[in-house]
């Protein structure tokens, strides 16, 4: 938009045409008070707080040129009434007065009106201290109250709008920010207004009430203390809090948050603004799901097994025992007899040192960051290789952008993406949602492509075929191979055959292909459902991204939604059996998690180190293996099922108790800071790894070349051993580094990562602290327009986006996807382990979200239910080739026939018992009681 010059309170400056008067004045450093207006939502002009005087240059009716007065100044025609600044767009020559007597009278009047209904209970109000009503009253309001206090309206309060949010009707100024946020931004229309006039009130009549994963945000944008969270209500006064910047590790978005602490206690979690990640929002999981940090059941000291019970031990004792045992196994049976698993929520520093400990100190490549359950997919490399380019910022995207979300349910897998993708659509982007079932995001799609159950690969191939037909292959600029194989594969079927197999109209395929081709920026996001279809699908999607030219540049590329907050970090940093940090393939590969359990059961693996994962909770194979193993170390926050089976249990510090960096789905590395001292004697994971490594180094245990060679044996048998797609051009063989195990702080580890791991170059703590240009997100710090709290401000760094690996030029892209997996099982239904935000994550313990955890259920389609005469609530059983499972049926009107959904990860519903692999086919039986 072209700039126009306006004059606000006598000061002239330029702003983009079409900006509203409130925002325009802000750009010139002039504050116009608002309540209902919020820059993230369309203006509604309801509260009338932003009334200002507006004038336009008078035009000569004949020439349409501004009339000039005797002094040569344009004659200004003032509008007869004051105008609401939020709804008035600026235009050339506009004159705005915000401080005239008339304006001040109106502003004071609106504030006085609002206060007539307000209970003036600031001393007991949670919002007190960060309340726009308080602050605006101080600056613009009347000094005294004329309204008879006895005439105040009283309402019953508080009204719970749901489990999490409470409404104080007396404080509510009816600005509708919360209702509009839910309707327009979150797409959960669960709030509304009952009655009218002074009796107008916010209600939630949905069942369950206020069912939204974003409800906490309404309390942030509420300009008064009307909405408060059950989590923070009456807990603390905000001025006693100190905000400690952290990163949420509960999903791959990597939202910036603040742990608001009073001394050493966590009072609340607030969003911390980052335009490139979470803007000013936080999902409820991130906001309310961090109570585990202070949970009473946290492990506080190292434990050593004595027979059938644990005895508390000193760190010295415990670590020595671990080092000795591992050294013993290593020297007796070699590194391949030792295996390690680390959770994909651990920090980059933890993960990097973990793999160093294993590779350099123990000589083992048996490393992974999965549970090793049957449905663990292959390692996702394309999300790194073809990741969105450096400089990507979804908030700057709109028209000209095409987003394809394929086989993902962002609301559950990475909730904040729902808000970000919806905002993209509102700014004019095209969103295509491809899935076999309805997801919430689909409602916001420009076009939904509902492929038939099992039809995803056909759809992806149809898209690739369409692009090849249009000559897209000739325009690829990247180093690539395998084009002929790709061609052969997709041309084997006609477009009609592919469309039919996908269950999608050919025109829709053409429309999507066209949108991807023509897009200035193209993003392909895929999630758990896509990954469960196997590498053939993901690689075809990769080919789609490459052929449409949407890779290797900013704002284009692939975004993989992987489990946990740092799966990408684990993959980047080599916590995997087949590659070192930086996707450097190993000549000899270790055991992936999936093969670990049988190897341990059979005695090939003797010692296990499990950090932050709980395979014993639902993997019978893992329990057997843990029983069989000679020595098991578990490093954990809680006494998990796995920890119960350990020989040594080491208490780890939580994310809020240590510094660390995390790599999100878009490969942005962000730093989280310690908000409090570690619980009890717990220690940061990296430190524990280092302590043991140091002891091992002192014992001079060094990897035995013979052992490493042996490690290759089981790897050969592994299916899909060719996991790392990017073939490194020359095998980088570094001279052996002298083992260094004397890091004092994690930033020293980060510095080493920056030095040694390709694409992490420059990612030091110092560089991570940069916050960019203040006001880069359209806001000056601490401005009431957004929120009056102090927590929002991002003073601690907005992170560093890594370049996509393909753009480093070190990788050649293979375009030939693997053949589709052959399905031999004839059972009629496909089992989908549904990823849920409120699934079985043990980190939700102690939070208010525990009440909202998914209940065990077998979700079936309407037509499958009718076929078997199954009603909601009937007990049903699903039977696979390897086992069976029963639970109550839930009939879902919007599920396609042929699909059965079971919530993933619920402790009470162990899916791995019946899974045969990433995809399991089952039959369904009604249990007759």
């Amino acid at each position: 938009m072209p700039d126009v010059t306006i004059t606000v309170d006598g000061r002239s400056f330029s702003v983009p045409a079409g900006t509203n008067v409130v925002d325009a004045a802000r750009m010139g450093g002039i504050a116009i008070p608002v309540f209902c207006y919020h820059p993230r939502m369309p203006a509604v002009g309801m509260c009338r707080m932003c009334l200002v005087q507006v004038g336009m240059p008078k035009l000569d009716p004949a020439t349409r040129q501004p009339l000039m007065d005797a002094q040569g100044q344009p004659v200004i025609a003032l509008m007869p009434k004051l105008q609401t600044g939020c709804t008035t767009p600026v235009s050339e020559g506009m004159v705005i007065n915000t401080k005239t007597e008339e304006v001040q009278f109106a502003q004071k009047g609106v504030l006085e009106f609002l206060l007539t209904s307000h209970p003036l209970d600031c001393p007991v109000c949670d919002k007190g201290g960060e309340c726009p009503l308080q602050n605006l009253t101080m600056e613009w309001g009347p000094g005294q109250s004329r309204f008879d206090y006895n005439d105040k309206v009283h309402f019953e309060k508080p009204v719970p709008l749901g489990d999490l949010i409470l409404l104080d009707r007396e404080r509510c100024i009816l600005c509708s920010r919360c209702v509009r946020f839910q309707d327009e931004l979150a797409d959960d229309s669960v709030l509304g207004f009952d009655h009218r006039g002074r009796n107008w009130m916010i209600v939630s009549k949905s069942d369950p009430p206020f069912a939204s994963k974003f409800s906490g945000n309404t309390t942030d944008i509420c300009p008064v203390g009307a909405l408060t969270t059950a989590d923070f209500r009456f807990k603390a006064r905000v001025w006693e809090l100190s905000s400690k910047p952290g990163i949420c590790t509960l999903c791959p978005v990597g939202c910036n948050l603040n742990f608001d602490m009073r001394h050493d206690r966590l009072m609340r979690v607030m969003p911390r603004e980052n335009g490139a990640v979470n803007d000013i929002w936080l999902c409820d999981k991130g906001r309310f799901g961090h109570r585990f940090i202070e949970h009473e059941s946290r492990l506080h000291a190292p434990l050593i097994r004595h027979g059938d019970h644990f005895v508390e031990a000193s760190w010295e004792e415990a670590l020595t025992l671990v080092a000795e045992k591992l050294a013993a196994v290593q020297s007796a049976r070699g590194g391949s007899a030792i295996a390690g698993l680390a959770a994909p929520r651990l920090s980059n520093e933890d993960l990097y040192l973990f793999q160093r400990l294993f590779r350099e100190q123990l000589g083992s490549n048996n490393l992974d960051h999965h549970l090793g359950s049957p449905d663990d997919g292959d390692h996702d490399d394309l999300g790194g290789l073809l990741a969105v380019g450096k400089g990507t910022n979804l908030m700057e995207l709109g028209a000209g952008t095409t987003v394809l979300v394929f086989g993902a349910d962002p609301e559950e897998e990475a909730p904040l993406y729902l808000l970000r993708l919806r905002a993209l659509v509102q700014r004019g982007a095209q969103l295509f949602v491809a899935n076999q079932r309805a997801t919430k995001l689909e409602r916001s799609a420009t076009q939904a492509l509902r492929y038939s159950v099992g039809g995803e690969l056909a759809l992806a191939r149809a898209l690739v075929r369409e692009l090849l037909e249009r000559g897209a292959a000739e325009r690829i600029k990247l180093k690539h191979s395998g084009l002929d194989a790709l061609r052969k594969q997709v041309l084997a079927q006609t477009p009609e055959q592919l469309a039919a197999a996908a269950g999608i109209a050919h025109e829709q395929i053409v429309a999507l292909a066209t949108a991807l081709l023509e897009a200035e920026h193209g993003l392909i996001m895929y999630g758990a459902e896509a990954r469960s279809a196997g590498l053939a699908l993901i690689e075809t999607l990769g080919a789609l991204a490459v052929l449409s030219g949407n890779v290797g540049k900013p704002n284009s590329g692939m975004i993989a939604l992987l489990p946990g907050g740092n799966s990408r970090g684990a993959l980047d940093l080599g916590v995997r059996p087949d590659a070192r940090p930086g996707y450097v393939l190993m000549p000899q590969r270790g055991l992936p998690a999936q093969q670990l359990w049988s190897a341990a059961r059979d005695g090939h693996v003797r010692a296990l180190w499990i950090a932050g994962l709980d395979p014993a909770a639902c993997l019978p194979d893992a329990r057997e293996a843990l029983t069989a193993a000679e020595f098991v170390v578990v490093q954990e926050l809680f006494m998990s099922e796995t920890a119960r089976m350990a020989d040594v249990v080491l208490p780890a510090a939580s994310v809020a108790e240590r510094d660390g960096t995390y790599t999100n789905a878009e490969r942005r590395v962000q730093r989280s800071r310690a908000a409090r001292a570690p619980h009890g004697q717990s220690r940061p994971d990296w430190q524990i790894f280092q302590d043991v490594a140091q002891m091992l180094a002192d014992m001079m245990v060094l990897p035995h070349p013979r052992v490493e060679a042996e490690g290759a044996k089981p790897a050969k048998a592994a299916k899909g051993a060719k996991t790392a797609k990017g073939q490194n051009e020359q095998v980088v063989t570094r001279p052996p580094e002298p083992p260094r195990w004397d890091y004092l702080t994690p930033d020293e580890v980060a510095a080493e990562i920056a030095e040694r791991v390709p694409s992490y170059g420059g990612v030091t703590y110092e560089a991570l602290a940069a916050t960019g240009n203040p006001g880069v997100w359209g806001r000056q710090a601490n401005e009431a327009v957004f929120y009056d709290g102090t927590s929002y401000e991002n003073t601690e760094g907005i992170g560093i986006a890594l370049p996509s690996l393909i753009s480093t030029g070190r990788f050649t892209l293979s375009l030939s996807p693997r053949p589709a997996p052959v399905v031999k099982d004839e059972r009629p239904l496909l089992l989908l382990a549904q990823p849920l935000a409120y699934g079985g994550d043990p980190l939700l313990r102690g939070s208010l979200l525990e009440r909202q955890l998914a209940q065990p259920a077998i979700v079936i389609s309407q037509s499958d239910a009718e076929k078997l005469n199954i009603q909601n609530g009937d007990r049903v059983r699903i039977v696979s080739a390897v086992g069976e499972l029963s639970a109550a049926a839930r009939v879902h009107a919007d599920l396609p026939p042929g699909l059965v959904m079971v919530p993933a990860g619920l402790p009470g519903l162990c899916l791995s018992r019946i899974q045969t692999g990433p995809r399991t086919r089952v039959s369904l039986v009604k249990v007759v009681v």
Partner: protein
Amino acid sequence: MPLSEYIIMRELNHPDINQFAVYRRVGGWETYAAALREQTPAALVQQVKDSGLRGRGGAGFPTGVKWGFLPKGVYPRYLLCNCDESEPGTFNNHQIIDRNPHQVIEGVALSAYAIECHTAYIYMRGEFASAALLLEQAIAEAYAAGFLGKNILGTGYDLDIYIHRGAGAYICGEETALMESLEGKLGQPRLKPPFPAVEGLYGKPTIINNVETLANVPRIIEKGVAWYRSHGTEKSPGTKCFSISGHVNRPGNYELPFGVPLRELIESPEYAGGMRGGRPVKIIIPGGASAPWLTAKHLDTPLDYEGVAAAGSMLGSGAVIVLDDSVKAPHVAYKMDEFFKHESCGKCTPCREGTHWLVKVLHRMAEEGHGEANDIPTLHSIYRQMEGNCFCLLGESAVMPIKSALELFPEEFEAIVKG
């Protein structure tokens, strides 16, 4: 002098005109039929423009000019007939529909044709159940006679008219709130711009006119612009159905040419027949509850848009409420503002909180007879804080009763304060 030929209240010339056959016999629907065959929409718009017809809903905006605001070439368009008549003192729409319903439907149909729209809605106040039935019947008769539906009279023109019932919310008379209500939502006003003519119902260009306005259209086209302009004044041509109520002997609806003095409407035996018991006039509210008050000294004000405006009020919907000296100004202001408070939709602060506060103070003064020292300045500042600052006209209307009462009868408020 009563009119010899009525434009709207034609039941006075043809008593059974509410029957379809009678309406047809006196030439009903012929104008429409002829227009469809012989006249272009643009020609009709021009005639309405030339006639000087002004909106009867309150604002008095020239109807033809309003129609001209429709963006060229943007379809579909909608025509909305506003029959949400809910303001105290206003009751002519209801009677027009009761007694001359076919002319309303013909007016809607003819106007729809003129603005090139194929779907028209009549928004009926929810309480007017019987009137809605009458209109539904009249619409059915028009369909049966071939004046509505597809390919009307073989001309290729299609038109459907639907009745939509309101449900008890005065605010829905505000044109954008009416559109929200038609869309099944809370009846709350929308931001303007965009104006309805550009972006109205379902985001499409929309014209919204009052029942009485549209009922004028067939007569203008039938009898011609010159005949129409021979009634009323230069700037307010035609006639107006005045609803007169209050302390007069014969309250009711009377159709008069614009420009007749207020005194004649009140005193003429043909019309309201003078004040009840011969008591003196104290307050005249000439244009519905939202109009500023006049007093006995304004009795010679001509009843046209300009005349009433010059006297300091507005003609509005032509609802004249006349009160005698038995009433107290604070009571009248209280009752009226209670109405506005009750009908305030809650969307904007000054209206929601201002009416609430006003009524609190006025109730104490008028009903409990208890005044406090600061009441009068407080009342002044409340309405000043509302005036010009509300989202829509409802809040602005609520200013009028209290402002008028305080300006015209300050002593009555002072008396309460003194006790």
